């Protein structure tokens, strides 16, 4: 095995790992405030990157990205307000089915707007052949962008939950909705905020990885499954564990092409998902007490 190639694969694995982690954190944010697993989580990533690509045709890259993240956040808010806000104690089954329906509709709309073409944002710095080298290993600068932006997001999220008023209110909601409501927190707005946040994070991540992973209307479902795998791997609700889980999955997937056809790559994530669900549903990093009944 060529050591240079090995590190290339690791870099690729890290890129994918971060996007899985961000999707997983998106799951966590919404799950914590509502108890919903949003099956449409992957669509936020798709929407963010596709919108940015379109806007980038006539706007400078940074503006296009910021605008597309804002648009996706708006979509997140609209979805919550239209489809969830007014439901009175819906069953889990009902919510699963609604988010699945949403995922389909968003994908079909994307298909209608953008067609089946595979697209990509340009590299943020340099181009596909430029590289920075560390100890003789060449890595695309975009990988550094991915690592930097995603780490910043995770960090910012931690600070947000710890120190900002909204963040604290959201955590209160997650701990005990009824109590939070009695303390005068508008829990409904917190739920909307959680959709906005996870849409925004998904869209941002979608933009930074787009130059490497490319974007297509149907990228959401695999991302959702892998994000969920990672969320479960890390134990639902824990952001740092999600990053660890994401990196594990991304690197495993990327190294797997050595031993099996790449057509089966998706099967790795799903096998991990099934194994974890069967044998350790609280996740690798979760404690037993953290596991909530669905």
């Amino acid at each position, binding site marked *: 095995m060529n050591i240079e190639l090995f590190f290339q694969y690791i870099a690729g694995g890290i890129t994918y790992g971060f996007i899985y982690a961000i999707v997983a954190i998106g799951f966590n944010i919404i799950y914590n405030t509502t108890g919903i697993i949003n099956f449409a989580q992957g669509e936020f990533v798709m929407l963010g990157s596709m919108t940015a690509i379109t806007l980038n045709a006539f706007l400078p890259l940074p503006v296009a990205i910021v605008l597309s993240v804002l648009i996706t956040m708006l979509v997140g808010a609209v979805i919550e307000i239209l489809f969830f806000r007014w439901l009175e104690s819906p069953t889990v089954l009902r919510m699963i089915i609604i988010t699945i329906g949403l995922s389909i509709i968003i994908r079909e709309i994307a298909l209608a707007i953008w067609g089946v073409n595979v697209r990509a944002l340009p590299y943020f710095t340099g181009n596909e052949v430029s590289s920075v080298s560390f100890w003789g290993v060449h890595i695309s600068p975009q990988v550094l962008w991915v690592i930097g932006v995603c780490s910043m997001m995770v960090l910012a999220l931690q600070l947000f939950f710890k120190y900002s008023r909204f963040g604290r209110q959201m955590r209160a909601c997650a701990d005990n909705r009824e109590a939070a409501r009695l303390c005068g927190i508008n829990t409904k707005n917190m739920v909307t905020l959680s959709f906005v946040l996870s849409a925004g994070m998904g869209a941002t991540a979608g933009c930074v990885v787009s130059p490497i992973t490319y974007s297509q209307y149907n990228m959401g479902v695999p991302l959702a499954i892998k994000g969920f795998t990672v969320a479960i791997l890390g134990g639902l609700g824990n952001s740092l564990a999600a990053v660890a889980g994401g990196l594990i999955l991304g690197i495993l997937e990327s190294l797997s092409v050595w031993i099996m056809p790449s057509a089966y790559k998706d099967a790795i994530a799903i096998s991990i*998902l099934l194994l974890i669900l069967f044998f350790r549903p609280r996740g690798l990093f979760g404690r037993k007490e953290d596991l909530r009944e669905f």
Partner: protein
Amino acid sequence: MKGERIKIGLLCLLLVLIDLITTSVARTYYLTQLTMSLYYTLVVLGLVLLMGYAGQISLGHAGFFAIGGYTTAVLSTYNLLKYKDSAVVKVSSELGLLTLRENLYGEQILSFHPWIGVLLSLVIAATVAYLIGIPVLKLKGHYLAMATLGFGIIVYRIVLGTPIFGEADGVSDVPPFVILPGLSISGQMDERRANYYIASLLVVVVVYLMTNLINSRVGRALRAIHGAEDAAESAGVDTAEYKLKVFVMSAVIAALAGAFLTHFNGGIGPSEASVMKSVRYVAIVAAGGMASIWGGLTMAMLLNFLSLRGYFGQYDDAVFGAVLILIMLFAPEGLLRVNPAGLLKNIFKRS
């Protein structure tokens, strides 16, 4: 019980009537799509039992359909001539399990008899469902949904990535399934009406068996599991066993539909195993009102027929997505149980 008998009688009458009408106005080509709809209806009925009555969601039922279809497709098309000297082939041939035929291009093909293909497809589906079911059915809610979805995707990836399953092209040139001399599952024009009646019979039989089941000791236990699993356990119901049995049963029904439809269509492609197909079955069950055999039946026939006739055009998937959302938002009890006045009042109250 008597009411159910009458309904089944009416269903038979309706199915015959449809045949008579389409034949008399020379629109028998409708029968082709009706037959296909009937097979998809079988899958939905199995899922009504699993999801509606026992309360266990499956987002992987297209996987079982595909297991049924692909098993019989491969067995009845894979040419064994080059292995004709091997012991296994010889023994199979002695036992009369093989048939020799000529395909479209005049090539000689020695393959398993479709009877073997269909029976094996049921056995394999049952085995897979059993093995998967043991760990999966311990899960609930989102976990169960994701695990079954994961199973469905694995089946999809396997048929899409494996040469013997024809990868993206699927398996074609699947021969007719001769059930008895003179009676076969095939898409040939002159067998259209016979095939419509075969599929109708299957649906009627499954409806009959299911209505009996629902109104029995087992049916009560299944509904109890749906309503309050812990209380069902305390009343002595082995919930794990019941869930497993009903899961296997609905998987076998799906595989049966897949196997028959594959012979009817003369082939099967990977789209039959796709997540979207599984979601579609769930959508139809939801539209029918979950725990409703007749609702599921009606919606399955209606939506599949419209879809197969191409009424939804390029928005086919979008239609099913929209059905899912709208039903779950406004009519979680199913379309047939909507009370329009109450619904309107509810909507206005909300806004």
